[in-house]
């Protein structure tokens, strides 16, 4: 994972180098600052110079301060910009790939997680790029620079620094992994306890109805207290690393100061040098401490990156055509499905098992079967949301795999089971079916689909904002919008997936006429449970466990007293007095 993350960062090299350079320059400026400071203090304290005589170094000192602050500003800005650019490009890559992966890959329960990855997951990489990565370099470069400066001034202090320096990251690592193990052991218990409150709130109604809501108050207190105790137990170890680091750093400063003092007494070193070393010592440890602080953010970032790259590496379930795209012969389309099989990755049995069906041009075929029989798989394959494991689907003899999915989908209009309304106006939601359509065509489609029938209930009519954060349309209204889209698109193939299942009696009556008109002069596949819809089809096919078990005209099937007849029969037993 780390490898792939590194590859994504390559384009940012330039700007990251700039960031690190600015920080390094800043460190050099700090060193200059300390040199000047020790010079001034020495001059006034030991050489008894007055203000006028140290004016020049003072002015230079002010200059270094301003330079240092400016470099800091520059560094912050460049680091952030690097992160912003990185996040945007990665987000677009992931998003584009998710679209290519299609609905076959994103099942509805995963959408929430995927959205979280694209939004928050990518944000978590911000600290990784803008702080952790530069800091990794700086935690080596800056201490080295300081060592280089201190060495000629006082080799003993340099040695002390050199010896204690690497101990810090080492300690961090050791204590870190120790505490992590302990945290992992407690993880389940801790996360359950922290989720308890939300659980109780979500189930409050249930608790109230069972008269147990007041007892929960004590339980919340009890669990929160236990959580506190357990977490503090873990934190005792987690904070140890910080404390040890602090102790080490402080002790080192103390030891260095003490030895400098002793050597000063023995005239082994000049005051100015000793003071400089004292000033530089905290600066030596600071980058290492910073790294420790950034480590947490780094780990979060790496966890997010893992998931992101998992997504980016998922193979697309559709193959692009390699040869020149063959157009489908114009006019009405006959769909021939031959020997089609599909197995979902990870599943044992095939969802479609050598399935064969012919949809002659300008006819309507109804597909019937219980849930899990393979109907939605067929729709996904017909829409080329995924490619079959074996077998072919041919349109007028041309296999649909010979076209790119986008081109193929221009030939098919789908009315899905749960139509989605996008953030936008009602008008836009219909128009997206065929953006070049004019207003008349749009209104006509809306009328036929029964959308105009409910438009008066909406305050802004066609300009009403719908979808996410807009007006919530009922399932029936959404379905009518989907039908309007199909009418507007006017494609030679039409797939209707339970088109009237969400509609109440009035709406269904309204649509029935439009659906009849819609299915004329088109090759139609309709998946339905409603007898009325099926009886009007030219052909009926019964699907069970991935295969066609019965097919024929509705009347023929009724006479044959097979499965289809049985299904009807069960319906008809509840006597309906005429």
């Amino acid at each position, binding site marked *: 994972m780390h490898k792939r993350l590194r590859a994504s960062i390559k384009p940012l090299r330039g700007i990251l180098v700039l960031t690190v350079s600015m920080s390094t320059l800043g460190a050099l400026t700090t060193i200059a600052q300390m040199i000047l400071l020790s010079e001034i203090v020495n001059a006034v304290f030991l050489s008894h110079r007055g203000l006028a005589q140290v004016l020049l170094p003072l002015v230079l000192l002010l200059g270094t301060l301003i330079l240092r602050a400016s470099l*800091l500003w520059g560094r912050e800005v460049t680091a952030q*910009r690097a992160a*912003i650019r990185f996040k945007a490009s990665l987000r677009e890559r992931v998003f584009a790939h998710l679209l290519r992966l299609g609905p076959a890959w994103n099942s509805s329960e995963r959408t929430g997680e995927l959205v979280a990855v694209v939004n928050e997951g990518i944000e978590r990489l911000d600290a990784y790029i803008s702080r952790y990565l530069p800091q990794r370099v700086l935690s080596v470069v800056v201490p080295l620079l300081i060592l280089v400066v201190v060495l000629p001034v006082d080799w003993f202090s340099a040695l002390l620094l050199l010896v204690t320096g690497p101990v810090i990251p080492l300690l961090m690592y050791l204590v870190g992994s120790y505490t992590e193990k302990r945290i992992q052991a407690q993880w389940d218990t801790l996360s359950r306890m922290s989720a308890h409150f939300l659980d109780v709130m979500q189930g409050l109604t249930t608790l*109230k109805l069972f008269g*147990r809501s007041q007892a929960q108050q004590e339980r919340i207190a009890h669990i929160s207290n236990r959580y*506190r105790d357990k977490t503090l137990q873990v934190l005792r170890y987690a904070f140890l690393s910080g404390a040890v680091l602090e102790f080490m750093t402080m002790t080192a400063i103390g030891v260095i100061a003490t030895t400098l003092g002793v050597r000063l007494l023995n005239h082994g070193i000049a005051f100015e040098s000793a003071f400089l070393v*004292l000033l530089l010592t905290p600066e030596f440890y600071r980058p290492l401490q910073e790294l420790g602080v950034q480590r947490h953010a780094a780990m979060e970032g790496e966890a997010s990156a893992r998931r992101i790259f998992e997504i980016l590496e998922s193979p697309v379930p559709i193959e692009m055509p390699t040869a020149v795209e063959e157009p489908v012969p114009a006019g009405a389309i006959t769909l021939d499905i031959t020997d089609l099989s599909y197995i979902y990755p990870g599943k044992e049995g095939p969802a479609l098992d050598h399935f064969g069906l012919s949809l002659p041009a300008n006819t309507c075929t109804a597909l019937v079967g219980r849930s899990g029989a393979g109907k939605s798989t067929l729709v996904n394959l017909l829409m080329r949301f995924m490619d079959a494991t074996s077998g072919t689907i041919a349109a007028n003899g041309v296999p649909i795999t010979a076209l790119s999915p986008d081109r193929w989908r221009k030939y098919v209009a789908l009315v899905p089971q749960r139509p989605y309304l996008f953030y936008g106006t009602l008008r836009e939601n219909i128009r997206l*079916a065929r953006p070049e359509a004019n207003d008349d065509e749009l209104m006509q489609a809306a009328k036929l689909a029964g959308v105009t029938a409910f438009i008066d209930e909406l305050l802004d009519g066609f300009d009403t904002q719908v979808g996410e954060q807009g007006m919530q349309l009922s399932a029936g209204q959404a379905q009518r919008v989907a039908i309007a889209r199909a009418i507007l698109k006017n494609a030679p193939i039409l797939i209707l997936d339970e088109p009237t299942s969400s509609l*109440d009696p009035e709406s269904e009556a309204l649509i029935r006429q439009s659906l009849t008109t819609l299915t004329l002069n088109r090759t139609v596949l309709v998946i339905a449970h409603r007898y009325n819809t099926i009886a009007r089809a030219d052909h009926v096919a019964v699907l069970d466990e991935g295969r066609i078990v019965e097919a024929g005209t509705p009347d023929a099937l009724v006479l044959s007293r097979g499965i289809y007849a049985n299904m009807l029969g069960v*319906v008809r037993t509840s006597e309906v007095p005429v």
Partner: protein
Amino acid sequence: MKIFTRLLAFLSPFRWLIVLAILLGSVMIASNIGLLGMAAYLIAASALGPLLVLLSIPIYLVRMMGIVRALSRYAERLVSHNATFRLLANLRVWAYSRIEPQAPAHLLTYRSGDMLARLVADIEELQNFYLRVVSPIAVALVVSLFTFGIFSIFSLGLAWVALAFLVADGLGVPFLTAFLARGLGRQQVNARAVLNLQVVDSLQGIKDVLAFGRSQVQLESVAACDRSLGHVQRHMATITGLQAALNDLLMNTAMWVLLLLAIPLVSSRYIDGVYLGVIGLLILASFEAVQPLASAFQRLGHLLTAAERVFAVTDAQPPVVESVTAQPIPAEPGGYALSFEHVHFAYRLGECEVLSDISFDLRPGSRMAIVGPSGAGKSTLARLALRFWDPSNGVIRLNGQDIRCCRLRTLRDLICVIAQDTYIFNDTLHTNLLLARHGASEAEIETALAQAQLTEFTRQLPRGLNTWVGEQGMQLSGGERQRLAVARAFLRDAPILILDEATANLDPLTERTLLDSLVELTRRQTTLYITHRLLGMERMDEILVLDQGRIAERGTHEELLAKKGLYRQLFDIQQGELTLA
């Protein structure tokens, strides 16, 4: 400001812990100041060549400061986290005590579980009040005063200058930053929200996106959102960069100015030269206390907003007030009868009525169905019977007693509901069942499970009844959840049972199984069956057909079919559906 004070009140139960934490935090920073100051003194003093023995105290102190700092840092973190967890516990208990009476009604008005999750997230965010706001501010105050005190030993003038710089960094820079960034925070939130919307839209509607060839459009949309967000973020980065730079500059300039002022004082012997270096290091080290203030103020902003949202919910009045003088419900030999007399209901005054003139009489031991197209107000009926709300007009009675005069607990002991969404708690299956009857015996649980047709299911579980279920445990299917609800209803054994669209989320096959498990239950108890699917209607004693909140038709199954009205229409549609064995 008022919100701030309210939040402070939450800290008062353990204020001594808070004081200790602030003290430790101050000691932590003071010890660093002391360490560096002492070290500088040590070196300067040594340069003058005194006897070693005179330096023994500074040497000792230098060593000590290191230990003090490490220890106080460790202790401070433990104590402040302790305080934070106590604060969280307080907040949760308090919030619960305020929200509990408001349930179930107000909770239902939240459009989605999202809002509840956000409320809980806001409450959790408030736990940071001490750690990230009060603590840094208090410690900064204490340390600034301490620094003032130390510098006044040298010269009062220096002390004031030092304090001025500390205040400039602690207060001035945050305010400047807030001023420069005004509006940017909101812009960023908005830009993020729009981006989020586009992503959600595209992923949830991916079938439609692909079916209508809109991939490119959506990609460009997201790219455009990224561009706007990037623009705002770059602007923000300039300001946060400025903030960091100013922090640094002020710290160093403070040192520079103090140096400038101290040098003449050293020359005039007002201050001993030994202390010149000390002054420099002291001021540098003291800034550690004020530098976190910028983010503390920012956090304060977020916290106050979150607190506002939380208080808006917790300050609301419960919609139903329990009568002070609760009357008992007269017991009748036959059981309990529920009646509605000309009940009207609207969620808010002036709004369209959800229920109009509903009257019916549910006799003990009888079965009544309430049917009608979705949105007709059927579920509201159930909620009124349970006193989630009071009717705008009319009376609801149990055995003749107005339910507004009863204790809520009594009312809910007598009526049990199986709704369409059964909530499973994050706990064992056993606990989830015990909810219905606190001290249920093993035998009672076994019977309930058997009646709900869950025996086989439970046997197959990895740990039987002790299997962890719920959000973080095993996920139960829709049918399994509803059967659990049936088991709970068996354990509860209340005289009146309301089935509120109990099968609405189930597919036909599962629905059939559930209805079978309910046969025994509905036989024993007075049942109100609310549904929009007309199954098993022949067994009902009376059926009420609701349309737009009014009773459109009533009668038995046969009577209604014969009328050829709305009921017949609904029945016919349903009949037209193929049933799959």
